């Protein structure tokens, strides 16, 4: 197993506001990795730094073994075709139909025929569990759950190796959320994906996440499998995992 992501000693400051003071984490190939933390703990900022939307004040991030600071323009372009980012609210292009949303990357980065692109779009919709008639619709005509699935289909258009998910189950009903979890595991198994997600969903963490990190007090206060994390006595871990309600559910861990 090789490392897909390595985050080393990340420090982030916005003006005088400290967000991260030395964050470290490593994500292995083919695992589902979760980042957890209170709101304002810098989870989303970390995700943005890993996807090169923001630059950390100092520290290094290695993706597929390469430091993202030192990448040439061509390498950045290649990297961006090898990852997919699923945004919290889908971020589908509202002026394009679902079909064109998914086909956009294929049209831009490959020279496949229209026919083939058409088939690929169908296959992706099938994979995320959407009916094919959806492709002629526009994002505003879809429900929240369908938007998540459709944007996952867009994220998967180029079959990326690495997937970043920002709160994938937020805004979904419990049944839909479990369905989405199952979908993510299946896709990981079939497509050899490595998945990094930000989530607050305890069921997701319990059911599908292999390892996780807890962000609090500007750094990682606990990491490893759920079992490892539960050994920590950090106040956030105590508060988040060890209340009465959860004790019953986590006994099996």
């Amino acid at each position: 197993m090789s490392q897909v992501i390595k985050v080393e000693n990340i420090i982030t400051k916005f003006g005088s506001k400290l967000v991260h003071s030395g964050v470290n984490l490593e994500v292995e190939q083919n695992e589902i990795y979760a980042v957890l933390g209170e709101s304002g703990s810098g989870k989303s900022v970390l995700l943005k730094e890993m996807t090169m939307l923001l630059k950390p004040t100092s520290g290094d991030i290695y993706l597929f073994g390469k430091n993202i600071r030192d990448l040439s323009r061509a390498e950045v372009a290649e990297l961006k075709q090898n990852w997919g980012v699923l945004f919290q609210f889908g971020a589908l292009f509202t002026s394009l139909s679902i079909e064109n949303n998914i086909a956009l990357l294929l049209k831009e980065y490959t020279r496949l025929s229209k026919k083939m692109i058409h088939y690929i779009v169908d296959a992706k919709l099938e994979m995320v569990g959407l009916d094919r008639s959806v492709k002629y619709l526009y994002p505003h005509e879809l429900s929240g759950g369908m938007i998540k699935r459709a944007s996952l289909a867009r994220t998967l258009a180029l079959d990326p190796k690495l997937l970043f998910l920002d709160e994938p189950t937020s805004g979904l009903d419990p049944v839909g959320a479990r369905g989405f979890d199952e979908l993510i595991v299946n896709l990981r198994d079939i497509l050899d994906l490595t998945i990094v997600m930000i989530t607050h969903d305890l069921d997701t963490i319990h059911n599908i996440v292999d390892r996780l990190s807890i962000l609090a007090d500007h750094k990682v206060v606990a990491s490893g499998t759920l079992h490892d994390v539960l050994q920590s006595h950090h106040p956030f871990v105590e508060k988040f995992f060890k209340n009465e309600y959860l004790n019953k559910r986590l006994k099996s861990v």
Partner: protein
Amino acid sequence: MKESGYRVEKSSRKSTVYCYGSWRVTTIDKFEKSVYSLDFKNRDIEIDLSQVSELDTSGALLLTMIAKSAKSVTYLNLSKKQDKLIHIIEESVAQRATAQYKRRGQIDHLSFKFFSSLLYVKEFIAFLGELFIKSIRLITKPKNFRFKESVYFIQTSGINALPIIGMTAFLVGVVIAYQTIVQLTKFGADIFVVDTSTIAIARELGPMITAIVVAGRSASSYTAEIGAMKLTEELDAMKTMGFMPFYFLVIPRIIALVIALPLLIFFSDMVGILGAMVATKAQIGLSFEIFIQRIYEVLALKHYIIGIVKGPFFAFIIAFVGVFHGLKVSQDTESIGKETTQSVVNAIFLVIVCDALFSVVFTELGI
């Protein structure tokens, strides 16, 4: 990277397709088109994947296309994951055969366009009616009137527009006077420049210039503001709190512009005439005193009043069209741009139509 592709070996009993290299979405485009011309004439084939380094969904999809013309297909040397992937893709391909979806044809499209423009007229009239009823309700319950919002819009759409309106009106005044002088001098009648330019400015040009500038500034901003609020569901939020968007957003904007536009027209008249005076002095050396003296003689009060009276009507059209298009914004970001363009174009067009009507009516009435 290793070269990717496939080669076919045919024997008497069956054909074997040897695939090699990376079969990823970014690599298969080189040989994708040749796959469509493969024809195995309904025989059994084997597909050997032992040399394939990578296979993704698009690659698997292409494999199923190779198999299309064959009677049966056996995959050789494939890993468990590849097997699973191909299985899923085969399922999705099988479903495609059964599902058919219609797309809109040309005639259909044309009739759709036609009926949607009819619908537009209907919506426009319905909105006018709604505004009328809401205004009457407002008169019976005046405490619903939002005084603060109205004042705010007088500030943003009226007072803030003074510099640009002043500049435009001044330049139009200069141009009108300058061009008229050139013609009138031929007849030795240059003093009539005062008559023509001041009457034209007070009666037609002042109101028109002002209305067009305000339409460009305010109709667009009304549409964009309200449209963005609709997009972010702020309008729905207001409704659930029991605030009527009509009283909060629509009526204050209309009232504000109805109050501000006549005042702006007055300002634009003054600056326009100043422009004409400056141009006249520069061209034929007519002094400001004589110019103003002449204005007293030739510019009847009625011309000025007609210009001002048009103001509230133009203002109503501009604000109404702006707000109407703002509320028409649908759930996609592109429609804000579309509606904003529409609102400016329609506002200017309707202002000109209205002005033409006034022109005919006043002339017929002998005013």
